[in-house]
């Protein structure tokens, strides 16, 4: 596969390197390019419409954050004291803010692009192939499972505590005390479940090893090697020459 998980990871590394090395104009262009890729390029498309909406929501939020960074620095960072057209905005601060804002935007979007286009299973086997210890990968998979299952459990505990008369909708001090009446049963039941899960995993012969199967074993493609190389060169250029 030309743009498998490894190659997409290499692309994210390349974009991250560009965020630190390239001028802000190119960073903006790359950020726009990422949004275009997420919409149009099959290997980078979000895995579901919900994830696509998450990506879009985040892209909008990052744009606002970048603007906020720009304005904040333009207002407070004097630099050499040059103002912009009589407004209380400093040119040095503006330039600095734009550089920081676009860098943050490109970094964040590139990371998000990787995760929205990569399923947890693909990510896990990518990590295993990269030599990450199995128990760490197991934790990632299990925690994802819990993230799916726990919200309904939390809702149930909240409703149960409310039904028992816990002041979950009272004034702030009472609500803060109710925090424990929700958290405590959640933690207690989850601890007990952890013991059972640990037992259950071993009862199915799992001792910390996850097998990589043939079709999970995709390799880094030529574009992937190119991205890695370009990313390293960009960082070297930034460190040594700029």
């Amino acid at each position: 596969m030309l743009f498998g998980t490894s190659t997409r990871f290499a692309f994210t590394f390349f974009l991250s390197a560009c965020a630190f090395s390239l001028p802000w104009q190119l960073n903006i262009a790359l950020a726009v390019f990422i949004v275009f890729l997420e919409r149009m390029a099959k290997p980078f498309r979000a895995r579901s419409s919900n994830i696509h909406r998450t990506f879009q929501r985040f892209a909008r939020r990052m744009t606002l954050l970048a603007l906020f960074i720009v304005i904040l620095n333009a207002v407070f960072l004097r630099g050499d004291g040059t103002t912009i057209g009589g407004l209380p905005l400093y040119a040095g601060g503006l330039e600095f803010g734009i550089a920081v804002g676009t860098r943050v935007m490109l970094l964040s979007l590139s990371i998000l692009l990787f995760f929205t286009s990569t399923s947890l299973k693909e990510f896990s086997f990518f990590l295993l192939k990269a030599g990450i210890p199995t128990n760490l990968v197991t934790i990632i998979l299990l925690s994802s499972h819990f993230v799916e299952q726990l919200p309904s459990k939390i809702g149930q505990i909240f409703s149960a505590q409310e039904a028992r008369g816990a002041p979950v909708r009272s004034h702030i001090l009472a609500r803060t005390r109710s925090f424990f009446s929700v958290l405590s049963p959640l933690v207690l039941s989850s601890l007990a479940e952890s013991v059972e899960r640990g037992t259950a995993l071993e009862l199915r012969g799992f001792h910390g090893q996850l097998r990589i199967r043939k079709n999970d074993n995709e390799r880094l493609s030529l574009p992937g090697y190119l991205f890695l190389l370009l990313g390293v060169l960009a960082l070297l250029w930034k460190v040594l020459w700029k």
Partner: protein
Amino acid sequence: MQTLREQFRRELSGASLPLVAFCVALNLLVGQITGLLKIPIYLDSIGTVLAAVLTGPWAAVVCGGLSNIMAAAFGNPTMMFFIPPMVSIGLFAGFIARLGWFRKLYLCFVGGILQGIIASLLSAPISAQLFSGTTMGGADFLVIFFRSRGFSIFESTLLQGLMMDPVDKIFTFTAVFFLTRNLPERLVTRFPGASNIRSLTS
């Protein structure tokens, strides 16, 4: 003395493995609980501290790091940049847990203050360098206030962190104290950090 590898293996096997996974999920989902109750506290490292107390510092380091990676995977990639402060929480909480600090409430209080200072010192340069101190959260007003008073980006971010992080960490550490002190011994003894929270009967 166990090697680092042996310690990792001890803290990340058996029942500890699903526990650490639960603690990662707790870090990500505690916002759901505080949201339901409409209380303005974060506590997004409560799972890391819980893992530190019940398993150990190295499992908590893993918990903290993976929490931020998972947060990025679930739609908040900026969390990836704050792995160092989160890892420091796991290490610090794990080591003071070994010293028995989680058996006394006042020591949890002190631990929370110290951890808050450490976390601010680690997160300030990241926040200042990458985000100019802004995250589009409520704390940004503090940063703006300090910058308007002439402090640099780094100083403003550090001061904001020193005002807010210790409070959040005090809440977190004392919450874990109250959560763990009444756990049944039969449950607690299944985890490597059992002696961190009580003297065991055998």
